[in-house]
């Protein structure tokens, strides 16, 4: 057989060390825009990933079904699809079901079936349970109990598109340039501890919460055990999955503000806490006692998104990169500044945030004030 390696690997690398790439852009005025720029930006960080995972989350995606839960489900067999569809018809009012449109794309192979369903809970939920809780339970049931089926996203007016390939290939496969949203996050994967499969690509999602991540969560085991007590079951074989469930628990269920959540996921060191005012010490110690099992250990930069908000956060000693850019109403978060500059050369300002401090963009809220930059007046 012909030796293809000079063509596939012209530089004869026997080992390539890389990292994930993450990118997010939000229009805080709520104006929807197409995916071309986001795709160009994440493609600009192509060399960070290795083609074993790419994905996008889009918000403000399905205005025609804005009040329905939009389920994107991956099937590994027709049997899985039949069983899940029977399950959905039994547990929801099914408004619409269709295969997610795709097109043949070089580099995208062994494709699973991916379908989307627009669902109302209607009269199906039992008792006092909130609709969102009912939906979380159904998602867990599909992922854990039904064969060959994984729910990729389950929020309203949003969806996750992901798979094995470079992110720009995944975008081409799903024709993402044809969609619009006011908030996009994107991910290029360089898998570290688990294999590259369609379910393991980012973003990870529950309801409308999504997370893209660069790094590795070495506390995955303890985080996962803790979340299981609240009914969240990890089935995607990747550490990042716990972050999606953690933010759903902390922000939606426990109603905590993001600043508190940052102090749970990336808490200050004990030595820092000791220097805080007493009241704050008490708060930080309490958080570490109550939510110690949700501390994320290991290096991470994450972009968390849900309707109306995009949040960037790194571990407290910032072992993975994050750059912030602002242009008018738009907030950009990126592993590398060059990706933001490519699609927005005239950013109003750009900076590198401090580890453990969240960068938050909110719908309708002015963006955070400019941090101190070089002035020179004090010389």
């Amino acid at each position, binding site marked *: 057989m012909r030796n293809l390696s000079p063509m596939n690997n012209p530089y004869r690398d026997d080992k390539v060390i890389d990292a994930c790439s993450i990118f997010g852009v939000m229009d805080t005025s709520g104006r929807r825009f197409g995916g071309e720029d986001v795709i160009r930006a994440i493609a600009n960080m192509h060399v960070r990933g290795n083609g074993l995972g790419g994905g996008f989350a889009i918000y403000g995606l399905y205005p025609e079904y804005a009040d329905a839960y939009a389920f994107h489900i991956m099937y590994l067999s027709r049997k899985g699809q039949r069983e899940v569809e029977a399950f959905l018809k039994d547990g929801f009012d099914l408004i619409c079901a269709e295969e997610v449109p795709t097109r043949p794309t070089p580099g995208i192979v062994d494709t699973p079936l991916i379908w989307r369903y627009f669902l109302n809970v209607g009269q199906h939920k039992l008792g006092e349970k909130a609709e969102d809780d009912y939906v979380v339970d159904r998602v867990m049931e599909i992922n854990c109990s039904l064969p060959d089926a994984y729910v990729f996203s389950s929020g309203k007016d949003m969806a996750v598109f992901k798979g094995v390939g470079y992110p720009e290939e995944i975008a081409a496969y799903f024709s993402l340039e044809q969609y619009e949203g006011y908030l996009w996050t994107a991910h290029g994967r360089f898998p570290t501890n688990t294999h590259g499969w369609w379910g393991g690509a980012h973003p990870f999602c529950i309801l409308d919460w999504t997370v893209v991540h660069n790094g590795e969560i070495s506390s995955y085991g303890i985080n996962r055990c803790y979340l299981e007590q609240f009914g969240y079951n990890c089935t995607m074989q990747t550490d990042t999955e716990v972050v999606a469930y953690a933010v759903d628990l902390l922000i939606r269920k426990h109603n905590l503000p993001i600043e508190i959540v940052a102090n749970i996921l990336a808490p200050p060191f004990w030595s820092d806490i000791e220097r805080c005012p007493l009241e704050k010490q008490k708060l930080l110690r309490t958080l570490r006692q109550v939510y110690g099992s949700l501390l994320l250990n290991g290096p991470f930069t994450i972009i968390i998104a849900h309707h109306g908000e995009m949040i960037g956060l790194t571990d407290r*000693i910032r072992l993975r990169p994050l*750059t912030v850019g602002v242009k008018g109403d738009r907030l950009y978060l990126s592993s*590398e500044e060059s990706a933001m*500059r*490519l699609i927005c050369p005239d950013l109003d300002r750009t900076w*590198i945030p401090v*580890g453990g401090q969240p960068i938050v963009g909110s719908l309708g809220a002015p963006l955070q004030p400019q941090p*101190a930059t070089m002035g020179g007046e*004090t010389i």
Partner: protein
Amino acid sequence: MAKRAANSVVKIDAGGVLYRELNARLRDVASNGVQRIELQNVYGQRYIGTDLGKPVEIEVFGTPGNGLGAFMDGPRIIVHGNAQDGSGNTMNEGEIIVHGHAGDITGLSARGGKIFVRDDAGYRAGIHMKEYQDKKPVLVIGGTAQDFLGEYMAGGILILLGLNLNAGEYHTANFIGTGMHGGVIYLRGSVEGYQLGKEVDVATLEDKDYQILQKFVGEFASHFGYDAVGILKHKFVKLFPRWLRPYGRLYAY
């Protein structure tokens, strides 16, 4: 891709060019005796300036990628914009001048040459810089820096000017000089004791320290149009390693 000018300045449009092709092109051009290269539309191409081995001057317009000037031996790179992570990785000789801020691990493991950053630097600037005989890297940061400045520093000179701090405002970096066992950090402005790693001590400056500062702050000021005399009027502190082998007993029986 390139237009050869008569005065041996070559302009290269880097837009859409893969970093490997761009660096191959730079090697090509530099080996033809070109003195100056202008790179336009740079968006994240890595390792610019590596493997040239000549004192060629490279002006970068745009945002150069990670590992700018990695293993560089001689060239001078001027960035009109911000630099990303890992600038000057293990560089041996040459200069990197950044008219903006620099990302994480700037100057990591540098063993020679000079890096001047006009604004702030990210985490771990100057990590494991080293020196040997006449090889002594210099990193001057005009703004402030984030945590772990000078971590595991084994040699060289790191100068942090804090020009964007207001009067009375402190640097906020923590773990400064953690694991430091060589070289020196000059810090303009103030830090609290808890911000320093356990392996560093504070001293007041002597005449020879001021001579060093005059030289390199002078160069910094001339690159960016500042007044060196004004900068040097302020108080500096000197951070130096307490031990040459801070972990010498850690693994010994």
